[in-house]
């Protein structure tokens, strides 16, 4: 049986949308059960479809680039909503839909008690749709549509708890920061359109080479660089690159499934995907790539460090996401786009897994997220523990887990760039290597604090209120199967996917034709990757030991809690800086926002109210009024005065006239 391809694509895209709409509008009518079944069905169809597509693309050479309908015509140019099914998009499809499916299932358990259950399902289905639009688009407009669409859903979901002040603050922040990125993104699209006359990927790529040495009119900047940087600005927003990263930690205000799906596995990687998708353009600008390296490097190391000082379980994972996104960005900057995508994929699985597991812990802890109040949970919830351990190992890059392969590739790429003396190479090497250890520290700090040691949750804490006394009499227990099943299903690829995919990604076989790795990468990475060999060789390289050292440090600190106190005291100022996120939040919240408001108030009161309205509009009215009051006095009431005025009139006219006569 063969399914018509176009129908298949449509089914993939539209089934989440349809289920989202039905659940969204009629959720109140059809009840929770039908709602979640529908949502899951929608995503399931997508997932199955995606795998079929992936299969056909990879093994049957399927390629589709066509239009669905004509979106807009301007002059002689027309823009259509179209689909591009190639290797890159098929891979992304598979990743997105499978994580999404897992999250859908997981949500049944996680959200069971929550208000707005149907709304939640509607949102995540909608998200899936938007993400698919983003991934499958064959042009910039549609890309932007999906781009902003996922942003919207992210906004909605971060603020899912609409009554919670911190949540609705976080979602606004997330949206606005993203908008700053999109500002650049849109301008980049504008430049592309202005120069190539099209927004279709294919056309743009083919035309772009004409502008290799073009410069921006009125400046001395290289056009392509400017375009690349503007577009990357969008990626910085979406993929939370420094300094537009501040929204991501706050986004943890959303329910945990969302953190897994949107803020770890899929949406935040859209920036990475976009750069990979546009690799032909980026390859033309070394400057842009260098900038990406620097941005990624900063993320990778400096934001990773922040993960160490966090106590909120989700925040630790969130900072780790930032750090990993930094890895991907470095890979992009090194021209190793396929590697970035590889890391994207592995990261999607293990980071999704970590979040889901964290969620499972949170359920068990009755929505307590502070790790200082956990500990020793390993024996109560073994599945969660094991899966999370797998995730952490993968994250830390311990062979043979998936993360090892992708991270190792990135390290190699960085080294390669350094070796070739390309700009940013040194920085890249320094940051990626250092952050290997950082990664291990924070991920295992999390594991130890949560699952090992003292059962701190038994301490009586009063912040739950008086009527809640003794609620901890119930032991923490393993989450229901709808929660653990996704954990297990995610743990499998987290552990294994590297084995199967590593070589294909590095040789770019899996993405060939849609992602063009930089020339130096292609020429220098020609050797065949054999996973087993790689794992074995891994133990001869430094990174693995760095990671193990990190784990060791985490363990030592775990065993000697006083060490950390001492350390904190020793580096107090640094600690404060770290705790305050390098003051980046303050920069936005306490500097930019007030300045913007003050500026607005200034313009309003001075410009609008005082100058335009006060002086000009009401001022002229007042002048007329004033004149009116003066001139009415002419009518004094004395008839003689009236007569005098007439006589004066005559005299004026006469004088006027004599001038005429004698002129």
């Amino acid at each position: 049986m063969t399914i018509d391809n176009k129908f298949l694509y449509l089914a993939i895209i539209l089934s989440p949308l349809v289920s989202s709409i039905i659940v969204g509008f009629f959720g109140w009518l059809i009840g929770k059960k039908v709602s979640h079944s529908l949502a899951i069905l929608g995503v399931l169809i997508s997932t199955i479809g995606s795998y079929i597509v992936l299969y056909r693309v990879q093994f049957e050479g399927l390629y589709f680039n066509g239009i669905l309908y004509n979106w807009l015509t301007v002059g002689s140019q027309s823009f259509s909503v179209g689909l591009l099914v190639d290797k890159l998009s098929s891979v992304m499809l598979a990743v997105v839909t499978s994580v999404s499916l897992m999250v859908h299932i997981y949500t049944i358990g996680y959200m069971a008690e929550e208000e707005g259950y149907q709304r939640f399902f509607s949102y995540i289905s909608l998200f899936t749709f938007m993400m698919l639009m983003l991934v499958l688009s064959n042009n910039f407009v549609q890309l932007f549509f999906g781009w902003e669409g996922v942003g919207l859903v992210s906004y909605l979901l971060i603020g899912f708890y609409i009554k919670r002040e911190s949540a609705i603050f976080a979602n606004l922040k997330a949206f606005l920061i993203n908008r700053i990125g999109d500002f650049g993104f849109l301008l980049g699209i504008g430049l592309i359109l202005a120069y190539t006359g099209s927004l279709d990927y294919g056309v743009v790529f083919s035309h772009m080479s004409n502008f290799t040495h073009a410069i921006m009119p009125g400046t001395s900047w290289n056009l392509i660089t400017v375009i690349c940087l503007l577009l990357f600005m969008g990626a910085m927003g979406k993929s939370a690159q420094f300094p537009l990263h501040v929204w991501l930690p706050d986004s943890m205000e959303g329910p945990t499934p969302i953190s897994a799906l949107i803020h770890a596995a899929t949406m935040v990687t859209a920036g990475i995907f976009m750069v990979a998708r546009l690799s032909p353009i980026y390859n033309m600008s070394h400057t842009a790539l260098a900038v990406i390296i620097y941005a990624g490097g900063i993320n990778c190391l400096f934001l990773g460090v922040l993960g160490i000082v966090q106590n909120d379980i989700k925040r630790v994972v969130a900072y780790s996401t930032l750090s990993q996104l930094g890895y991907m960005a470095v890979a992009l900057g090194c021209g190793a786009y396929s590697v970035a995508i590889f890391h994207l994929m592995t990261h999607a699985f293990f980071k999704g897994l970590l979040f889901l597991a964290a969620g499972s812990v949170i359920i068990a802890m009755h929505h307590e997220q502070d790790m200082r109040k956990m500990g020793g949970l390993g024996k109560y919830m073994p599945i969660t523990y094991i899966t999370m351990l797998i995730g952490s190992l993968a994250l830390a890059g311990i062979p043979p887990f998936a993360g090892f392969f992708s991270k190792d590739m990135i390290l190699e790429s960085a080294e390669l760039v350094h070796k070739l003396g390309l700009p940013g190479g040194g920085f890249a090497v320094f940051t990626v290597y250092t952050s290997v250890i950082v990664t291990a520290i924070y991920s295992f700090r999390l594991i130890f604090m949560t699952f090992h040691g003292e059962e701190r949750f038994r301490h009586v804490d009063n912040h739950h209120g008086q009527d809640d006394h003794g609620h901890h009499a119930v032991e923490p227990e393993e989450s229901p199967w709808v929660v653990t099943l996704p954990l297990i299903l995610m743990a499998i690829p987290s552990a294994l996917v590297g084995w199967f995919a590593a070589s294909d990604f590095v040789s770019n076989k899996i993405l060939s034709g849609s992602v063009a790795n930089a020339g130096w990468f292609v020429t220098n990475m020609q050797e065949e990757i054999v996973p087993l060999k790689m794992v074995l060789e891994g133990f001869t390289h430094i990174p693995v030991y760095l990671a193990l050292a990190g784990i060791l440090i985490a363990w030592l600190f775990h065993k000697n809690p006083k060490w950390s106190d001492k350390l904190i005291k020793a580096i107090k100022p640094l600690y404060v800086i770290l705790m305050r996120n390098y003051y980046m939040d303050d920069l936005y919240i306490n500097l930019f926002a007030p300045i913007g408001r003050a500026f607005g108030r200034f313009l309003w009161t001075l410009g609008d109210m005082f100058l335009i309205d006060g002086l000009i509009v009401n001022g002229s009215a007042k002048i007329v009024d004033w004149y009116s009051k003066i001139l009415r006095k002419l009518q004094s009431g004395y008839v003689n005065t009236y007569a005098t005025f007439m006589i004066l009139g005559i005299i004026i006219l006469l004088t006027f006239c004599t001038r005429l006569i004698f002129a």
Partner: protein
Amino acid sequence: MTLNLLNLLSLTIWVPIIAGIVVLFAGKNDNLARFISILGAIAGFILSLIVYLQFDANFSGVQFEENYPWIQSLNIYYHLGVDGISMPFLLLNNFITVTVIIAGLKVIKSKVALYNSMFLLMTGFMSAVFCALDAMVFYVFFEAMLIPMYLIIGIWGSSNRVYAALKFFLYTLLGSLLMLVVLIYLYYVSSDTFEIFAFYKTPLTMLAQVLIFIAFFFAFAVKVPMWPVHTWLPDAHPEAPTGGSMVLAAITLKIGGYGILRFMLPIVPDAARALSGVMITLSLIAIVYIGFVSIVQKDMKRLVAYSSISHMGFVTLGSFLFVGQYLNTWALQGAIVQMISHGFVSAAMFMCIGVMYDRVHSRNIADYGGVATKMPIFAAFFMLFSMANSGLPGTSGFVGEFMVIMGSVQTKFIYAFFAATILIIGAAYTLWMYKRVVFGEVNNKHVASMSDVNFAEFIVLFLLAFAVIAMGVYPEMFVAKMQTGVKDLVMEVANTKLLIK
């Protein structure tokens, strides 16, 4: 070519007007008045829809032409017709009126007949403005609109309504009176005709062009409104009743933009080219400056009013972008799309605020909070419109802005740079307001007693939401009919008509 036995345009114009007059005399019977006005509005909409469907997108020039002598002693002809540029506005106008009338059904309890009648008259007048091919017909209806609007703001407005109504009236009258002189002048220089298309062919000296341009600027910039002459809008909107704000924002402002396209650009193209820098600067000031001003507004309607100014900045920006001799097609078409879209979005925003106002009787953002918990359906609609207002792709708000920004990159990158700041600022003021109003804890008893949208409100919001999404997802539907018109306009403006003495 087109079936025009019925004088469709005349019908579209006069059916609502006559309905309005009938309603006026329906007098005391409120329900009868409501019934007739709904019928009138829907009839108008159906007629305009027929026109729209019959409209031949590939035909260059005007269609459904009607030309009868009206006032021969002044050479005024009752000359109507639509082309690609006016077509969408005609439809928009009649559509919005339907929503406004429905929105007013339950809310308006005093002077029902007068209220509905004023709106029906407005519709008819505005349709006529969009259809007029004779400058004087245009002018007559252009000004006639002031009367019902003045009454609408003044009678059903809130506390400061008198000031607002007066300001609105005089502000707009100032511009239009100057335009009147110019039209008369053009009448003479183009050998005694008020035909707008005859004006296009009249050569003028640069000085004359600049002066005419300035007069037109006052007429249309006030309506749009552009930056330094905008202050009537933030006063008129908050004071006007919901329906008034909807019509004002959705259509009346568009007449300014339409006037620019119909009069300013083709009649004095050389002046337009020469002064385009100034106009663009003013537009950008409107976008950025007003954007910032919007952020700090405490009154929801005032905020949306300011945001309208900011969005209309895109219209003027798009209209005055040139690439060499030619108007920038992208930007120009974007300007039109932006107008249509803003018509839907701003009407919807005002409707939303009106819905809340009817329940709490306050427009202050500070008096709200946590509306979503009490009115989930409403909150969803409001979210959609807020997103559209901040230009989210997939909603109509995006398309126009996108096109104008794309166009301005082609002219000068820096223009696009400033224009694109609306992405940030627009989202900031809209969503910040949304956050303060809709999200959060319910913290006062007024909000606590709010009930979700009723049927009439639902219908209105649904219609608008449909339009917003339809236009965002498939703008081609709207754009297709205007292609030829835009092309004609670009060609018209590309010609110089400089008369060198």
